[in-house]
């Protein structure tokens, strides 16, 4: 549906987007995830046509977009601040794009009412923009775009201005809406949780480049780089060096963990290559008694814990590593804090398939 081919954007000497290529499929919920300044909004604005591309091509629905101004592109956008027209009421805001289509007034009113039903704001037609809450504005911005039945809907940080509870509710509604309408959604966000929970695929951007494009679970379980691994979820990193490689797997000596076994194809071919061993906090198990067996066990001292509600983060100091290791445990019982006294001895275990091996950079 949207093909981005080697697109770059320069402002003077500053390169905001560098040689980005993406292929967004029809009906897909696609997220551009990145910190501020990563170029994700610039890329979205180039797709919308508000910024010309410096180099490369954008093709939407088979049509090249270089010469197509924003008002003629088959896409609509929900702006970050919603950009509700302040001088019009809700009804006129939603009907705004219908004038050009030459739709008769009664038909327009009918379409607007359908939209108001869809966004669960029936009877709000005569309200003014300043009489709406943040969530209501967001819905109006959605309705105003969707009434034109675009092939693609662009969303620029649409939930950023909402408080947490409303944000979660709107996330669910957005997902359901997209599934119902089957329209391609392209979402820009800096919130990794939002990107993971909403999208079919996520492109992680950093410093103007797309670092990895994958499904949320692939991004989480198989990050391709330290950058993606640390941006999506939490991660413990251990410097490591590849040792003996055999048919069953490769040995890697990891700082603080000792010898770990990983799949042979996960490590670089060069002998004694430097690698980075990564372990998610929830893939480590915390034991209060010394477990049986010697492999995949490391002893440590509990520094402190952080209570997060459904889980608890434990920070464990181990020998041979300056920073503490983060271990996440589920709070399945109530109040176990007396077991987790500061300074007590603990053991961490893990299974080999939880280990992610990354380039040492």
């Amino acid at each position, binding site marked *: 549906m949207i093909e981005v081919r080697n697109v770059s954007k320069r402002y003077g000497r500053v390169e905001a987007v560098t040689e980005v290529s993406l292929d967004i499929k029809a009906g897909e919920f696609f997220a551009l995830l990145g910190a501020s300044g990563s170029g994700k909004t610039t890329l979205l604005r180039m797709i919308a046509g508000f910024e010309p591309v410096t180099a490369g091509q954008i093709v939407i629905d088979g049509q090249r977009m270089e010469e197509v101004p924003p*008002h003629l592109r088959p896409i609509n956008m929900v*702006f970050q*601040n919603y950009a509700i027209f302040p001088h019009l009421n809700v009804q006129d805001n939603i009907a*705004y*794009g219908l004038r050009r289509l030459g739709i008769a007034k009664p038909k327009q009113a009918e379409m607007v009412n359908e939209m108001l039903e869809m966004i669960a704001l029936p009877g709000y037609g005569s309200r003014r923009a300043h009489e709406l809450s943040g969530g209501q504005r967001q819905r109006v911005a959605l309705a105003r775009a969707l009434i034109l039945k675009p092939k693609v809907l662009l969303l620029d940080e649409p939930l950023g201005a909402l408080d947490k509870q409303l944000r979660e509710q709107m996330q669910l509604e957005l997902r359901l809406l997209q599934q119902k309408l089957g329209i391609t959604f392209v979402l820009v966000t800096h919130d990794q949780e939002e990107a993971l929970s909403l999208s079919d695929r996520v492109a992680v951007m950093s410093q103007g480049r797309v670092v990895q494009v994958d499904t949320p679970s692939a991004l989480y379980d198989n990050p391709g780089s330290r950058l993606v691994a640390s941006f999506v979820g939490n991660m413990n990193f251990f410097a490591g060096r590849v040792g003996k490689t055999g048919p069953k797997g490769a040995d890697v000596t990891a700082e603080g963990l000792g010898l770990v076994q990983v799949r042979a194809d996960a490590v670089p071919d060069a002998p004694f290559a430097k690698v980075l061993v990564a372990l998610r906090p929830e893939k480590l198990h915390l034991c209060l008694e010394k477990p049986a067996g010697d492999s995949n066990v490391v002893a440590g001292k509990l520094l402190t814990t952080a209570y997060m509600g459904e889980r608890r983060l434990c920070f464990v100091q181990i020998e041979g590593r300056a920073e503490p290791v983060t271990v996440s445990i589920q709070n399945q019982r109530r109040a176990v804090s007396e077991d987790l006294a500061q300074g007590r001895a603990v053991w961490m275990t893990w299974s080999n398939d939880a280990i992610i091996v990354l380039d040492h950079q």
Partner: protein
Amino acid sequence: MSKLFSSNAANRSLFVYAAIFSVFLYLPVLLIPLFSLNSGIYVKFPLDGLTFDWYLELAQRAPLRTALYNSLQLGAVVALISTALAVPAAKAISRYRLPGIRLIVGFMMLPFVVPALIFGVALLALVNRFDVTLSLVTVAAGQIVICLPYAISTLLPRFDTYDRSIEEASADLGENALWTFWRITVPTIGPGILASLLMSFTISFDEFYMAFFLSGTDATLPIYIWTQLRFPQDFPSLLALATLILIFSFGMVLASLKISGLSQSIKNRGTK
């Protein structure tokens, strides 16, 4: 009052200063309506008697009606054109980062500081040089230059506080630049446009120098008043006329200030 005078000496002298200031500023203005109701023709106390005859007498004067008509027409044209020119100018100043923008703004605001007398003479020389016949058209041209800085500074705060993304949203919803301007920009800055129209009209209506130098044989209201000042017997009628103009101008300026505070935007811009 007693509270005011009981406070310390510095405050008291400030109060005296403010009182004298107000008297100098407003007493002569207040005398105009007062003497316009005097039945004698000389401006002196005590008043000879109360009369509305001078106001009635105004209605009999055909040249006055012509001058009034000229001034209204001129004011309308000047207001429309200077506002039409000021809208894109204000938008550009507020919106785009142009090289040398402060120089350009300074140039546009020049009529604020150049004495109108000098400016009128200069324009007259220019107009003669190119053999243009003096008429209300040349007056309008001169007055537009004078009105532009006022119109721009009235509109600027509107554009400064205006969220640009609503224009992008309009484009995104399928409207081209012209329709976006009509459906989004104009209604959003509407009060500013109205204020600019009122302000320019008022300035044109009161303006003397351009009208004096550039008008040829078509007198505007200020020119008419000036030519009538020679005849003492006409003076009370002029006072009556001045009273009407005073009320009218006051209302216009008040309305335009109310709509859009002629703000410090120019001052702000200088320090940016």
